[in-house]
Every structure is written in structure tokens, then in C-alpha cells.
């Protein structure tokens, strides 16, 4: 497998406070990499550095480099707008645009990026995205309903469709199921499993069983450091670091 994203010596700060310390990690293409660790260990901060969302917070900054498609995303030449389109994100709590219809939610990104030529084309693209997010059948008759009228699990899939609509290469999931019920969670896990055929996926989760179920690679973070990174099976059956072992056997976290 190719390497899609190379993280080199990444340090992240909130003002003076360092929250990520010298992270080095390589994300493989078309695979699911999960990031696990106890609360506050820096998992969310880590993936937010990858699509440069971390720096949106006042006084937040980053040192180090992240190579994506051969270019350091933190270099002067990088177009952040393009980057964020290519590296999509799904958030912990579903956040569809409440005043927009389901259709418009998905179409929003497409329209911004000018991906379509005629109205017909837009309809197709929206339908495609909703199908990929396993939501089409449930909403095809109510596309004009507001995005907020769906259930939690459906809203999250709508957000996934919204992210897919702009044709990303990588999708970042920040604890996408933590606000959802088990059935919705299962649906989304299936979805992620299917998506990895086309997309590179990084998922942050505090649910170890979830990581074990769906990911190919797993990284264990603790207190801002990457403690261990390996294939998922190795991490869960044969952890090399004592701290990793303690975490996955439930001694803390």
C-alpha cells in the first residue's frame, strides 16, 4: 500500500500549552487508520492538524510538516481551501446546516467548488453522494425537507454525504458515532468499511471495539504522544508498549 499522508515531527500548541509532542506517523492509502487513546490525549487535535482546522482556533499553532500528495500542507504554497476539499471531515456531533434542505446540504460543497455544469448534473451528483453515504433510500422522497428534520444517525450520514459530494481523497472522522445509538453506529461502521475501497480514512474513536472492528491500522496516543502504531491486529493481540497494553486491557482510560 502507498503512503498517502506522512506526518513528520508534528508539534501542536494552544498558546503556550503543547498538546502534541513530536508525532511521526504514515497513513496508508485506501485503508482505515484508527486513532485511539484516553480523553485529552490529543487524538482530535491530531486529525484537525491534518486538514488544518486546528489553526482556526485563536492562538493555536503547529510545528512540523505533514506531506500530502508530495507537498507539505503547511508550506506557503499550499491552498488551504483546496486542501480542505480533498481532506474531508465528519464531526463528533452531526452538524448539518439546519436551515438548508437535505438536497442543499449535500449540494453546498458542490456549488462552492463549481463541480457541475447544469442543474441535471447537480441532481446526479447529490444522488450519488447520498447513495454512497447509504442515505439515499431513506431521503429520496423528502430532499426538500430541512437537514435538521432527520434523526441523529441520518444527520450524521447526511454530513458524510456532504463531505463525499466534494470528491475528497481522505476522510477524517472525529468520533463520529459517540452521539449515536448502536444501530446507527453499526450502519456507519458498515459505511466506513465500504468507503475504504475508494478513500483513505482516519477515524478517531474512544471505542476500542470499534477500532478493532473496522480499522486496518491503529495508533495509540497518550498525553500528546504517539505511543505505538501498528496494524490493528498487532496492537490488540500483541502490543509492544506496556502503556498500550494497559489501555487496551482496560486498566485506565
Amino acid at each position, binding site marked *: 500500500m502507498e503512503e498517502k499522508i506522512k506526518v513528520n515531527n508534528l508539534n501542536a500548541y494552544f498558546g503556550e500549552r503543547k498538546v502534541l509532542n513530536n508525532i511521526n506517523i504514515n497513513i496508508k492509502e485506501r485503508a482505515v487508520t484508527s486513532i485511539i487513546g484516553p480523553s485529552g490525549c490529543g487524538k482530535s487535535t491530531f486529525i484537525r492538524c491534518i486538514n488544518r*482546522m486546528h489553526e482556526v482556533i485563536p492562538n493555536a499553532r503547529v510545528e512540523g510538516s505533514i506531506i500530502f500528495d508530495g507537498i507539505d500542507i503547511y508550506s506557503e504554497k499550499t491552498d488551504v481551501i*483546496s486542501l480542505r476539499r480533498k481532506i*474531508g471531515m465528519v464531526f463528533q456531533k452531526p452538524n448539518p446546516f439546519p436551515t438548508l434542505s437535505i438536497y442543499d446540504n449535500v449540494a453546498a*460543497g458542490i456549488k462552492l467548488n463549481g463541480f457541475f455544469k447544469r442543474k441535471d448534473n447537480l441532481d446526479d451528483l447529490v444522488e450519488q453522494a447520498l447513495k454512497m453515504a447509504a442515505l439515499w433510500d431513506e431521503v429520496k422522497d423528502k430532499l426538500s425537507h430541512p437537514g435538521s428534520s432527520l434523526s441523529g444517525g441520518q444527520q450524521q450520514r447526511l454530513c458524510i454525504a456532504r463531505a463525499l459530494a466534494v470528491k475528497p481523497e481522505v476522510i477524517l472522522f472525529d468520533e463520529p458515532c459517540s452521539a449515536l445509538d448502536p444501530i446507527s453506529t453499526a450502519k456507519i461502521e458498515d459505511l466506513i468499511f465500504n468507503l475504504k475501497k475508494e478513500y483513505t480514512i482516519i477515524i478517531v474513536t474512544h471505542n476500542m471495539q470499534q477500532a478493532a472492528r473496522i480499522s486496518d491500522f491503529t495508533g495509540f496516543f497518550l498525553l500528546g504522544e504517539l505511543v505505538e502504531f501498528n496494524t490493528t491486529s498487532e496492537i490488540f493481540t500483541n502490543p509492544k508498549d506496556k502503556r498500550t497494553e494497559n489501555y487496551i486491557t482496560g486498566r485506565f482510560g
Partner: protein
Amino acid sequence: MKKGKIIDLIFKITTTVFALTVVVIVILMIYNMIKQSMPAFNKFGLKFLTDTIWDPLAEKFGALPFIYGTIVSSMIALFIAVPFSLGAVLFLSEIAPEWIKEPVSFLIELLAAIPSIIYGLWGIFVLIPILRNYVEPFLAKYFGYLPFFKGEFYGCGMLAGGIILSIMIVPTISSISKDVFNSVPQTQREAALAIGATKWETIKLAVLNYSKTGVLGAIILGLGRALGETMAVTMVIGNCPKISISLFEPSYTIASVIANEFTEATSDLYISVLVEIGLILFIITIILNVCARLLVWSVSGKLKGKVIE
């Protein structure tokens, strides 16, 4: 124990009675104003609202020029104030760094504390000369083909009234819009950024869409404030009850005619007419206020009313 219960009961009753004062005041206001307007209403009926002659000596009274003046000057004020207020508030809340945001927000709040009379004073001695010497000649020269800029200009008039009102309602619109924009959850902005939106696109997609209702409420409250403004407008609008499409012409608002002529009113009928005009203003502002509050409350969720100066 018994004594404590009695004390508490008296306490509750006392505070309730005092709180009811506002309700009593409003009811009395409505009652008294209607009662005092009856003579005028009986004499002129509904034609009062559409008549344009204002001749106190001949006891001919028509309210239309004032209704026209009030509404048009307020509309001009909104037209000018809304875009600049929203632009400034968006800049302050979405883009400006903390060291700009704090002092500038403070300055805008200070605008709200300046009393109307001082705006009026400034209006007479600063704004009107500027209009007469620079702005209106410019408008007449380059846009004189439009009906709005025809005729002689004196500096004072509808345009001056509209402009001074616009400055005065900026703080109202700004402070409510600021609250509305601040209540947009950060996750909405992040959602827009995450699909590759620029800062402006994020504002359009995540902030403005979400805030439509609240901003509308802010605008209506601004309108309400403009309609009731008295001193500053009186001092610059020319105080002449004529209806004209040209902004250079003098005009007269409901509040201004009451301010100017109430103490000069020589007959009971005259006073009754002025009270009736005031009643019209009263009713319009109440309706606007109620609508605006309902809109703003529906966005901010709780039954929190901001006391607008």
C-alpha cells in the same frame, strides 16, 4: 413560624403589586391616549389618515404628511444603516482579532449612549453644512435626473433626517446582530470550512443562513427606534408638512410635529389631534416591537428581552 409566613406573604404581594405597575402604566397610557384622541377622531374620522392639509388656524388637520415623513425617513435610515451595521458586526465577530474587537465594539456601544439632542446639535452645525456644501450639490450634479435629487437644496430636509437616523440606529442593529451571530454554534462554521469554504463563504453558509430570523428582528427593532426618534430629527428635517419624492425637500415626522406644536396648540381640538397622531405612532411601535421580540426570542431560545435604549 406563623409570623414568618405572614411576612413572606406580604413580601410576595408587595413585589407583585410593584411589578404590575408596568402593566398598569401601559393600560393607562392606551386608555388615556384613546380618550384624549376621541374629539379629533369624532371630527375627522378615518379621513384623518389620508388628508394632507395641515392648517391649524383653519382647524384643518390631515396626518398623511407626518405618516409619510416618519416612514420614509425611517426607511432611508434602514437602507443606510443595515448594510454598514451588518458589515461591521460580521467583521468584528468573524474576522477581527481580539485587540480590534474589544475597543471597536466599545465605541459602537458608546454611540448608543449619546442622547438624541446631541445628535441634533451636531446635525444642525456639522451635518447640514456638509450636506448643503458638498453632498447635495454632488448628488444634484451627477444624479439630478433621478426624482429623488431634484429641486433646491438647503442641507436640511428628508435626506438629513434619514442620515441622522441611520447613525442613531446603528448601535441598536449592531448589538442585537452581534448577539445573534455569537449564538451560531462554532460547529456550523467548522462544517463549512471542512468542505473547503473561504472565510466569506463560511459566513454566508454557516452564519448568515442560521441567523436570518434574528437579524430580521434586529432590523425591525432598529426600525422601531427610528420611527420614535424625536429631537435629532426635528432639528434637521425642516419641519414642513409636505409630501415630496425629492430627498432635498423638507419633511415632518409624527414625533417632530408633536415636539414642535404641542405647547403651541391653542385649542382642545388641536391638542386632541396631536394626541391622536401620537397614538398612531404608539400603536405602530408597539406592533413592531412585539414582532421583533418574537423573532429575536425564537432564535435565542429563551424569553430574554434586551432593554433597548
